[in-house]
């Protein structure tokens, strides 16, 4: 047997490791999803009393709603982009189809997603009417109107769908671009030294692409924050602070976009110089 052939136990070990990794990742995603669903559905409550309708509580409650879903979506988008870019061959039909869809979704202004959420998904879930007139008897001591649980879950699905369509394409697109920005000679120099695909990714590609991937994730989340401004309007109709909150969230989105572009400016040229 030649010096570079792989023995049967090694092959078996490799296959077993891949299987275990697949199961762990799958289980982690399902667990995250279920936890999110449970906690979120319980947390969607509308402040109906003036006691808590300040800027801070609504800011926190909306961040609580948006950030976990967005983070999960970004995580999923980044993972999916790695699969597209690193494992699917360039000639693959699936890849070109997904890339064209992603390009389409990225170009849609986030405002339209908000309108979509309000007009289509929310009316379909028949939640907006309920929120519009919270029954008085349901108000609890904290001044929060509890919405019936099945409506919460419907709303959670509606919001999640919108966020997923909005955040995942941006995360996929920016991550793909970040991975492409790592020059081929760097990858090949690691390959010809005998590194396997994972080692090339972990040792060479990810460290160089990380700033861009992070900036892309930042961009994706800021996009979801921008649409959150509209969703706040749905959540808390009839309270006085809406324009303030709208401005606040637009400001937050703007800030995050600025930070992400700064990240690109500061870190990317520095690594690209040595790439």
């Amino acid at each position, binding site marked *: *047997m*030649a*010096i*570079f*052939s*792989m*023995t*049967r136990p*090694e*092959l078996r070990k490799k296959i077993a490791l891949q299987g275990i990794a697949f199961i762990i990742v799958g289980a982690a995603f399902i667990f995250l999803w279920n936890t999110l669903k449970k906690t979120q559905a319980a947390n969607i409550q509308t402040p109906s009393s003036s006691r808590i309708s300040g800027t801070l509580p609504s800011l926190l409650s909306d961040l609580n709603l948006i950030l976990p879903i967005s983070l999960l979506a970004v995580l999923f988008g980044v993972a999916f982009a790695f699969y597209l870019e690193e494992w699917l*061959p*360039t*000639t*693959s039909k699936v890849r070109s189809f997904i890339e064209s869809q992603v390009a389409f979704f990225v170009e849609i202004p986030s405002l339209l997603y908000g309108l979509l959420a309000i007009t289509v998904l929310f009316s379909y879930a028949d939640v907006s009417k309920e929120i519009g007139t919270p029954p008085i008897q349901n108000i609890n001591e904290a001044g929060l109107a509890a919405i019936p649980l099945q409506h919460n879950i419907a709303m959670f699905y509606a919001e999640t769908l919108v966020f997923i369509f909005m955040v995942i394409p941006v995360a996929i697109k920016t991550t793909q671009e970040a991975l492409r920005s790592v020059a081929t*000679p*760097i990858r*090949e*120099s*690691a*390959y*010809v*030294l*005998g*590194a*396997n695909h994972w*080692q090339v990714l972990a*040792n*060479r590609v990810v460290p*160089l692409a990380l700033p861009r991937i992070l900036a892309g994730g930042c961009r994706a989340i800021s996009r979801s924050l921008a649409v959150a401004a509209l969703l706040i309007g749905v959540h808390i109709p009839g309270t006085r602070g809406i324009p303030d909150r709208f401005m606040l969230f637009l400001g937050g989105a703007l800030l995050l976009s600025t930070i992400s572009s700064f990240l690109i400016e500061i870190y990317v040229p520095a*690594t690209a110089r*040595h*790439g």
Partner: protein
Amino acid sequence: MNSQTTPTNYSIETENLSLWYGDFQALIDVNVKIPDGQITSLIGPSGCGKTTLLRCFNRVNERYGNVTTKGKIEILGKNIYDADVSLPELRKSVGMVFQRPNPLPISVYDNILFGLRIHSPVRSITQAESDQIVEEALTSVFLWEDLKDKLKVRATSLQLEQQQKLCIARLLPLKPRIILMDEPCSALDTKGTFAVEELMEVLAGTYTFLIVTHNMAQARRVSKECIYMFLGELIEHGETQALFETPQHPKTADYVQMRYG
């Protein structure tokens, strides 16, 4: 060296090797035997499949999805397209140096240890061992005197000539048998070219070199055997001096006497 598996000492043997990029056939029925322990050069006009042939030998070509390969390549007596071949191990035995020096954007020290580290378990190499490995590798490419105080310097900030030598040095700790070189001197000046050629001659006994070059004078200077390729076909393979002075094939004659094109 490899006499158990093949009667003569050939490092690389191909049988009817054909390769397609999509619909375009880049290699047409290449049959070649590359002898062990000496320098063989590949010459020919641009786009005639020299680099493609070279990149077949460590299967780097396969990274692109649209490549189809047919035929057989035996390296050190083993068909590298067999199912049980492990690519990392193959690439450990068959090193490669590129046209443009491409050291990794880490320190000189880490560059040399990179290959070794990915092939050995975590923390299995002690500090003393790694110091020694780095010194040996740099000494054998004549860089130790220049770089012994600069081991922590980022490798991409060195001179091009030093970078290219470093790219050769980082292969050595893996103890490869064959080193493939894809126009290793085209980015270097005369002095750098001379230094790399000198290095190849010193190392030639230990390693088998296969070098793609556009520089005919270089092919003549360094290589013992020479292969002329034209439009994906292997036209002529023979002793360098014979191929340059008394070429058997009219196409080879046209090329080596600069009447081509």
